[in-house]
């Protein structure tokens, strides 16, 4: 197990360099001059432009820029944005907010998704199951921003239960509504995944044998059906951690949250290489770690995987 974990962590190294290099190259190749974009209608004097260029290493060839960036990165210097703030500062304010939002959403979708999916799977073909399927289909087919605006209007404006926008520090209670919106699509997938998995496992021979042992129905369901059904769900959740962290742009936009999504979007528009690359690098690490966590959880849930090649 330890060996496996170590191997997976080592695999992160090429993934890290590959991803940062690609992203850096893409930002570098974006059309338009970042300095010109920064100053808009009134360009500064050529001397100032040259100074800024050398300050941000923009006058050097691409590969030098990348190597200088990586060198600084490992010294803990992630560079500065074109507006002069250090990138690490921006990260320190954006990441915790998004992480809180993503974790809250993950908790919602896992908890409710598995619960609803389990009940639907146990009552396949009944009313609850049919309604769960219809609702999940709705959530999957309606775009997130529509769900976002509707919930914002109903709970924020009409009922006044929640704030329509989230304040700067983004405390947990204000994030509940955005997290529900963010979780909605994944919730629908988890319901369907769990339902299918549960109804498959219910027909398994070992479930019949468990009942024949004289176990109670609740015990058979929780011990012999649920655990076996969680394997595919856990895979999905792991991949979802990544997309929740990154893909919150729409939700963050609706509720005016200063999270990762908005910051990266702004940085891309401005062509701020260091900001974009640093954020992406951190996201890549989160993605890889989340996948590692999934694989370890996988092995915990299914012992057959532990001993496989």
């Amino acid at each position: 197990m330890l060996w496996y974990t170590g191997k997976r962590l080592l695999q992160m190294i090429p993934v890290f360099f590959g991803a940062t290099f690609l992203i850096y190259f893409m930002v570098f190749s974006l059309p338009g001059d970042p300095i010109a974009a920064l100053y808009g209608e009134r360009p500064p004097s050529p001397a100032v432009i040259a100074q800024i260029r050398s300050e941000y290493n923009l006058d050097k060839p691409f590969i030098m820029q990348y190597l200088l960036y990586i060198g600084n990165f490992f010294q803990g210097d992630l560079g500065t944005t074109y507006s002069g703030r250090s990138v690490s500062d921006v990260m320190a304010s954006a990441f915790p907010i998004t992480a809180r939002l993503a974790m809250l959403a993950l908790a919602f979708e896992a908890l409710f998704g598995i619960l609803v999916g389990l009940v639907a799977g146990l009552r396949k073909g009944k009313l609850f199951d049919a309604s769960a399927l219809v609702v999940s289909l709705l959530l999957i087919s309606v775009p997130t921003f529509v769900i976002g605006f509707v919930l914002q209007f109903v709970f924020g404006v009409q009922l006044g239960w929640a704030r329509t926008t989230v304040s700067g520090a983004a405390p947990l209670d204000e994030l509940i509504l955005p997290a529900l919106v963010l979780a909605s699509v994944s919730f629908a997938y988890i319901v369907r995944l769990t339902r299918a998995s549960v109804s498959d496992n219910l027909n398994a021979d070992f479930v019949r044998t468990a009942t024949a042992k004289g176990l109670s129905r609740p015990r058979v369901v929780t011990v012999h059906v649920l655990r076996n059904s969680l394997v595919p769900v856990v895979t999905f959740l792991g991949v979802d951690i990544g997309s929740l962290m990154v893909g919150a742009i729409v939700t963050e936009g609706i509720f005016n949250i200063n999270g990762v999504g908005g910051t990266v979007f702004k940085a891309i528009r401005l062509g701020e290489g260091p900001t974009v690359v640093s954020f992406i690098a951190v996201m890549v690490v989160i993605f890889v770690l989340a996948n590692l966590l999934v694989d370890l959880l996988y092995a915990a849930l299914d012992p057959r995987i532990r001993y496989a090649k």
Partner: protein
Amino acid sequence: MTQLATETVNQISSTDSAPLLEIKNLEVGFRTQRGVVPAVRGVSLTLFPGQTLAIVGESGSGKTTTAQAIIKLLAGTGQVTGGQILFEGRDLTTLNAAEMQAVRGRQIGYVPQDPMSNLNPVWNIGFQVSEAIKANSGLRGKPLKARTIEVLQEAGLADAADRLKQYPHQFSGGMRQRVLIGIGLSARPKLLIADEPTSALDVTVQRQILDHLATLTRDYGTSVLFITHDLGLAAERAEQLVVMYKGKVVESGPSQEILANPQHPYTQRLVAAAPSLASRRIQAKKNQDAPTSEIFSAGGTDTALIARATERELAATGKDLISVEGITKMYRIRKSGLKYDELLAVNDVSFGVKKGTTTAIVGESGSGKSTVAKLILQLEGLTSGRIEFEGRDVAGLKGRQLLNFRRRVQPVFQDPYGSLDPQYNVGNTIAEPLLAHKVGTKKERQKRVLELLDQVSLPASTQFRYPSELSGGQRQRIAIARALALKPDVLVLDEAVSALDVLVQGQILNLLTELQTELGLTYLFITHDLAVVRLVADNVCVMQKGRIVEAASTDDVFDSPRELYTQELLAAIPGGDFEFGR
């Protein structure tokens, strides 16, 4: 304990005491879109304390459904539609869920059919045994653990204490079945329902397990309800026999009497078709120098079948269609970290198969016989050696050539549950190879599917059904139909008839032989069942631990086995020394 034993003796001696289980006119139906389909139609049987009763019948006869109805564990939409199941005078059909839960495990133990799928893969063995004990006795903590070990040891796992933390996939089929027997008997139930408890195991393991089960149930005075398709096994293990056919009991009574003198035509057919017994007869008659033709008809097997085999034996000269030279397959098994164990699954095996003949590879599980099949099918790479098909080396075939090879050499696999896609209906399953090899138009494929279904004696309507709705035997017939779809030259049959009941087995073996003559097919028959080998094979290779220990013509192997191992295998055939009436 002593008291229990005395009671047991009393119970056995007094068969005129009240019956333990009495089924009266039981009717079970399965709800479908076209109404209720009856599966059990008015079954009655009586089982006294301490007795062993076997329900015998082919797949689809309703024997398993009857057993499952007793403990209210009918699959899918099944429900009891009439009759009574009296257990110690109490009608089980009227019990509610909580009352039934108290009966299951504690009063009636259950040993299921397939040891591979009946243990939950994600929980360790100790957990699965102890939860059964906990549910039925309320033991906790240390006494629970001690009892768990005890139960497993009684079931024949001597090193149980060290293996509690292991998972089902680390146990062999025989060991898993021991675990399941342990679970079934853990609460000392009055009745044990054993549904084909050994049909997935080798003969030698089967013998050990059944002996063990017999000892345990005798010691505890447990009554046993055996469900089996194996007449030899029923004759050997049960005092009472109930023969079921299409959901009805056609004959019942003391097993020796029934098998020696079957009254109902169905039972007569069943007895006549039992292959293990046929081979015995052939051997016996031969010793008396009886004329060959009489032996075969007396054996109840297809006379033409064996005559043809003899013909082929004489005709089969010339070059081998498949020739295997010194093949070896080594598996590396990861232990921990960087360490590997090497397992020699196939060790320097050589043999040749002539066109139009049948070669059987016999051995217990773990002997490497299935690996040989996989190597020939090009599903696994060779470690060393050479396999030739029509004189050409098949190792390293790629792309189109490999596709052509696959088209001509088709497999039929061991597990009729695992080798069919549950999401595909039967018609699509059979048509799939045609589609994959782009044969014919949609209409032609459709026609071929019906033709194939007819060949494996399934009704045309089967094409719209799904594997889960079919019995094991029916599924295996579909697998055979699928393999025949492309009209291949060679069929590799990996335990293809092991899961079938005798009559269907007989039909399939006849069908295979007919097809062999018609199409000049060559068979490679992988099996643990020597009785079947006797009926179909021209040549036999006996494998043990990766090596061929004996290779000769079928007659030589059966009449004068040279190796001790072969003799052991022959001796372990159930019901081998029982005289059957024909």
